């Protein structure tokens, strides 16, 4: 394979890798991964929330840490 082709491929590959790593770092920093508990509840519609299994909610309305 020609040196130019290898060079271009490596450049593109590194570019993509670097940008995805940066995206991850940004996501972590900006709190994308921290609202995990609210996330799981988002599957339910408003009217379904009151029919949930009682032990899943503590009085403050949040899901307790799983046992």
């Amino acid at each position: 394979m020609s040196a130019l082709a290898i060079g271009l491929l490596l450049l593109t590959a590194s570019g993509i890798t670097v940008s995805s790593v940066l995206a991850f770092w940004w996501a972590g920093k900006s709190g994308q991964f921290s609202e995990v508990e609210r996330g799981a509840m988002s599957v339910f519609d408003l009217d379904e929330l009151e029919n949930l299994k009682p032990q899943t909610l503590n009085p403050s309305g949040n899901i307790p840490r799983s046992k």
Partner: protein
Amino acid sequence: MTEEAKLRSRAERAEIDAKAAGPVMQFFISALFWLLAGSALALIASLKLHSPTFLAEQDWLTFGRVRPAHLNTMVYGWATMAGIGVALWMMSRLCRAPLRGVGWLHVSALLLNIGNAWGTYGVLTGGSTSFEWLEYPRAAGLFLSAAFVPLIIVFADMARRRQAGHIYVSQWYLMAAIFWFPWLYLTAQALMLWQPVAAPAQAPMNWWYAHNALGLWFTPICLATAYYLIPKILGKPIHSYYLSVIGFWSLAFFYAWNGMHHLIGGPYPAWLISVSIVASLMMLIPVVTVAVNHHFTMRGSFGALRTSPTLRFVVFAAMSYTIVSVQGSLTAIRAVSRVTHFTHYTVAHAHMGMYAFVTMMLFGAMYYMMPRLIGKEWPSRWLIRIHFWGCALGVLHYWIILSIGGIKQGLWMLDPSVPFLDIVQRMLPYLEQRSWAGVAMTTGHIAFAISFIWLLMSKSNQDTGPTLLGKTNNQKSIV
């Protein structure tokens, strides 16, 4: 929260279901047709392997054409169309955005049907491309490709209109699938059929495509389904949302490099094969996180399996996902591949994935969705039971018998003192058992088709409540 808010929420959901009903029904009915066609082709192919003179006169029914016709109708007819129906509805529900562009979705379904029909006809009449999972003649591929244009637009439109707030894990899986698959398919069509690359590069591309079609198109749709339906049915949120984040990203990272494990021992640079083996083993990470997540969510609620048809199919499928993926990771190890490569073991593995996982999950979703889409309940418990048990026992029998047979076949092939034709003869009982398994599975499909048509034609029976299996007030608990 107020009564008013609850009513509004319920009304929103009803509107979403009503809007989705038309296109989703078209996809489902089409999918069911292809399921039956594909099952007929499957039985013919299976019978031919132990009775080679069965229907041997006609060229259009020769094994080498019927087998790819079966695979492609199941992949692009049954699983793709059912998967799209499920994905459209689920995305609409999660975005809280009723479907728009319904007319275009009907066009999409029509294009898929034309593509599948043309493709199947093409394969049977000698136009197969001979590339696994891509056998439809390239003209048919144009129809399949075009069908995705309205789909991408409709999905992007729903994503844009989605209610502010959290993006649920199922939504990531669905958006990823609708993005990845067209790229996969167009690349494969272009570089293998329209402007083919050099022959040695075709095999890596073939298996990059085929393996990713399973892992980055069908798997995300079906995992999205499990993450949606299990909480909905049980009334419990997913056990660990954090795990689901890890599961999604590790799937995205590692899956796409697996493809070359189909070519272990083949004429390829060792580094390419080794990378795929490593990636195949790394897949244990997303697979285990998904398994743990689903198991802990289900913990304490396994009793619901006695009554909910949907849950039976979904949980069976989710467990199969774990089993087939762990099996896949282990099979990629060279010492194992040495024995199993080129044998019926691989066929068993493929059916564990595409059937026990993908197909059973799609059945589960259809059982959940249909009553909500058309406002009528499933008419017969017995048909549901025949469907479930025929398919579940059928595929398990299939998998066990051909895995054992395949391993034996592999070991005998490695032993040069066993003449090849002896191996062929010794495999016959296993191949016959596979045909029986196929009969069980097809029986399940026929029961489902009858159930489906009966449901469509029945009068509304809202007052009887959901159709549940198992013990009810005045009925004995049957399986």
